[in-house]
């Protein structure tokens, strides 16, 4: 009993050290790049399998004088087995763009496919996805910020561990692969336990800090998928803010590819 106890006392730090060494070389890459990529893959993996989702979204645009405008839209997303998600956003407010819908096929490699439906003209327009750095609906979110975050769209570098709002996080740097991106790099704080992004710093083309996104009010759905109700983007250079409030999340609603075509886009309301 005593000897055993003594034994354990002696060996446990050794085993722990061995285990940590083994784990870190196994579960985490030996270079910061490999480790960063592995964390990004884990984030993606943990969100796999939701099939499809729908939600409503309120977007509050604020300027530096404290004035704000609100717009509302509905969102639906469909997972693709071997590619990025398909998604559609339909506007409800402001009224002049009511019914206007935006359809996007995200691709892991190459540029995304995007179409815009203009209800007044009953016209579907294919639009260039190379405007990814441009503001989405006059907000502080660029198209690339709201589009599906595929692992392949960035290269990664593990930076450090840090405590953020009382939670342990990994801090990664990710650099957009696409030269059309408006960013040189992003720093992402990822919750160690839940593998979800809690904060992102965006650096502009001159590598100075442009925006900070804080993602809060996460809720878990179907015992697996974490979705945040509040996304707050602050532009440090202009003082403008945009808050996204998500609500009415639904998963596995039975959406299919036929609900994400140019034809279905024309029927969006």
């Amino acid at each position, binding site marked *: 009993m005593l000897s055993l106890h003594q034994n354990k006392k002696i060996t446990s730090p050794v085993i722990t050290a061995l285990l940590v060494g083994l784990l870190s070389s196994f579960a985490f890459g030996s270079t910061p790049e490999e480790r960063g990529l592995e964390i990004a893959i884990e984030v993606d993996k943990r969100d796999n399998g939701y099939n499809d989702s729908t939600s409503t979204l309120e977007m509050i*645009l604020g*300027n530096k004088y404290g004035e704000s*405008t*609100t717009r509302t839209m509905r969102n639906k997303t469909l997972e693709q087995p071997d590619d990025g998600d398909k998604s559609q956003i339909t506007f409800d*407010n*402001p*009224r*002049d*763009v*009511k019914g206007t819908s935006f359809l996007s096929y995200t691709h892991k490699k190459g*540029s995304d*496919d995007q179409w815009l439906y203009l209800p007044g*003209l*009953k*016209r579907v*327009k*294919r*639009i*260039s*996805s*190379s*405007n990814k*750095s*441009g*503001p989405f*609906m*006059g907000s502080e979110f660029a198209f690339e910020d709201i589009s599906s975050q595929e692992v392949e769209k960035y290269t990664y570098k593990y930076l450090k561990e840090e405590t953020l709002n009382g939670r342990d996080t990994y801090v990664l740097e990710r650099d957009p692969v696409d030269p*059309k991106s*408006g960013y040189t790099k992003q720093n992402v704080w990822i919750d160690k336990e839940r593998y979800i992004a809690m904060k992102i710093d965006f650096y502009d083309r001159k590598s100075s800090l442009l925006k900070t996104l804080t993602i809060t009010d996460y809720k878990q759905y179907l015992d697996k998928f974490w979705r945040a109700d509040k996304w707050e983007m602050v532009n440090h250079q202009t003082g403008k803010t945009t808050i996204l409030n998500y609500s009415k999340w639904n998963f596995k609603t039975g959406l299919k590819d*036929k609900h994400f*075509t*140019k*034809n279905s886009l024309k*029927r969006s*309301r």
Partner: protein
Amino acid sequence: MKKSIVFSTLLLAGVYSFASEITGYIGLEGRGFLDNPIHENQKNNSLSTSLSLEYFHDFEDDNERIVATGYARKDSSTDGRDHFDISELYWWKGYDDFELYIGVRKVFWGVTETSHLVDVINSSDSVENIDGEDKLGQPMVSLLYEQDWGTVELFSLTGFREPTYLGANDRLRSELIVEKDLTTYESSQEEKHIDFAARYSHVLGDLDLGLIYFNGTSREAEYNKKSVEGKDVLAAHYNQVEIFGTDIQLTKGDYLWKLEATHTKPKSDSSYFSQVGGLEYTFVGLANSDADLGIFMEYQFDERDHAFGQNDLALGTRLVLNDTQSTEFIGAVTQDLDNKTKFISLEATRRLTDTWSIESELRVFTSVDSDDSLYDLREDDYLQVLFKRYF
């Protein structure tokens, strides 16, 4: 009371999604003409109001829908623009493999900016605007079949909607006015002729492709001079035509390449070819701002000597500020390459509040050649301001 009925219906609908809504807008439009009119009783200014009302109702787990849209305009200075139209009144049902539409619809086909050649389903509501983008509702039965290899749509167009014509006191009218009572048709069934149309469309990566076929009453009239009680007027004649067409857009990076082409075969006349094609390039984030600046060029060609765009080059620019008010400007100059005729169009739109927006347009016809199809509009340069109140 009404609200509680709607609410309880919503509750009854239970798990099925159930939506219905009435929306629309009131438009207040002012037009000022920059030159004195050619014809008597034409005015330099006009004010007019328009109303668009739209109702839709989804049911059967979103597999069925009813849509009804009405449009009306009342003009202060003339009566040629006053009209009411049922733009949409249809029932839609989605089956497992296909979709069915029965009723009055508006269908837009095409990709280009300065001309709409393959947009052949609906007749023009010409009194609304000269750009040909305003259309009358078309009664039809149509089937849509969507597969991995493309989408096929078949249309039986049950009856022709005669385009609207401007009156004697309206600006932007032709030299002679069209006398509606004199309209004739090639088909013995006249406007009751049932037309057939089909479209195949597909997305192949960067390429959006469409092929169209139309067989029936031409949406474009042939005009003949007639004399009624000693006064010269125009009589519209609608031929039977067969149209084969294509619309193609290639989206490559900051470039959009666009082409529309049609081959029209009138039943009792020689056939002709028309095309419009070009490219658009966008400078994203102009001078480190949020704004995008697009430039576009389109070449229009038509084998018929007196057609609009028989040999014309359009150069244009689009400035999108990407601001909270969604401010946009589009300007284009269309130059006839056979004579000096120039058509300049400037449009600007901006949101004012959540429910109000402003749209303005300036249209100028300069150096108009007496042989050009725009000659009748040579003194009709105008500035239009439109306020829209949505509800």
